[in-house]
């Protein structure tokens, strides 16, 4: 099968982001989506530490420690970009002003629950940051993750076993083996990589997976 690498996953997500969208890309894998957004279109990247109109990483030597993204990496500001304080930043999320958030996840359930902040392991120091705000923080919340763990267990599940970040908030899951819809109707297949069949997907996830959208 033609499993997507991380760059190809990022490019796949980027294809579904329209011009004019206000977008927050979560820390880690989702950050890579920025590299595949079309340069000739205006897409507004928000970072929850207080930037709208965020640009790419600066050239070496031009980093500014007071111009960083949510992952605390140096970034740049596009012409037309602006800064704001934290209460305004999270009002953009909670208030439904952002169009799209892309998040990483440990697990997503068929009904759109997400677990991505805490494994619940004994002794682990919990840290939540903006995860719970982002999980409910846009008109569409997308997840980008590998479909299976290193030991082959599906991260798209009937019910999350890790502590939840948000309930029923995810609409679509982009993975290395295909794209899935989730929500009140349950999980469905949007597309699958060549060589990974509907049966493969159902067997790997243990979910029924509506394939009507795929057939159409």
């Amino acid at each position, binding site marked *: 099968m033609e499993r997507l690498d991380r760059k190809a996953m990022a490019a796949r997500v980027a294809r579904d982001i329209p011009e004019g969208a206000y977008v927050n890309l979560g820390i880690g894998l989702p950050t890579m989506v920025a590299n595949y957004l079309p340069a000739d279109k205006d897409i507004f990247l928000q970072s929850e530490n207080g930037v709208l109109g965020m640009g790419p990483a600066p050239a070496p030597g031009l980093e500014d420690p007071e111009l960083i993204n949510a992952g*605390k990496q140096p970034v740049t*500001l596009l012409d037309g970009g602006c800064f704001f304080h*934290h209460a305004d930043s999270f009002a953009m999320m909670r208030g439904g002003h952002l169009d799209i958030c892309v998040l990483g996840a440990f697990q997503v359930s068929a009904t759109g629950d997400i677990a991505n902040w805490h494994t619940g392991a004994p002794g682990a120091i919990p840290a939540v940051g*903006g995860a719970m705000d982002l999980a409910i923080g846009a008109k569409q919340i997308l997840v980008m993750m590998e479909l299976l763990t290193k030991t082959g267990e599906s991260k798209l599940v009937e019910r999350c076993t890790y502590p*939840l970040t948000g*309930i029923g908030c995810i609409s679509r899951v982009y993975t290395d083996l295909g794209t899935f819809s989730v929500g009140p109707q349950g999980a469905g297949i949007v597309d699958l990589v060549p060589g990974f069949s509907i049966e493969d997907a159902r067997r790997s996830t243990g979910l029924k997976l509506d394939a009507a959208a795929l057939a159409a």
Partner: protein
Amino acid sequence: MIDKSVASATAAVADIQNGASIMIGGFGTAGMPDELIEALIARGVRDLTIISNNAGNGETGVAALMKEKRVRKIICSFPRQADSHHFDALYHAGEIELELVPQGNLAARIQAAGAGLGAIFTPTGFGTLLAEGKETRNIAGRDYVLEYPIHADVALIKALQGDRWGNLVYRKTARNFGPIMAMAAKTAIAQVAEIVPLGGLDPEAVVTPGIFVQRVVPINAAAALAA
């Protein structure tokens, strides 16, 4: 004449007491008022409750307070990071209390304190471990969690410029929690790279109006910008 400027960081923190609750601005190291914190450490106060986004990065700022074991409790959103070793050690030794708050709820609770609200209903965290035991309400079809304001005795923040009336402008993403923490504390102390004469700040561009700020401390501009 009202002059809120204070000559040194040492003088600015000289009345902070043991057991004080202190908001500290900054997201990671951006906007972290390092010099005010150094002065606080030198003052020797302990049993502090710190409200800040992180629990310290590396060796400076909040991390230095952790290293010196001055903190009894921290209220923050993201304590665990690659360089939070001083907090990690205290946490594992059971020597610090942690109240973990989602970042947007932290901002909203601080803002609520500054705005005089008795509480807020927030959708963030509903149905999760961090809302366990808390009052909830369904309003117009959406579920919310009741959260209370976070007040503090003192806020230590970093801005770019201020004037003697306490008006502030910030620099890039170093702004983060500064404006709302200034509102939520009884005494807001801002370290700035430069104090300008009254009228020197564009009134249309002032971010924090002076009413929210009690002390402004000039810290060497070149060092502050390079930090």
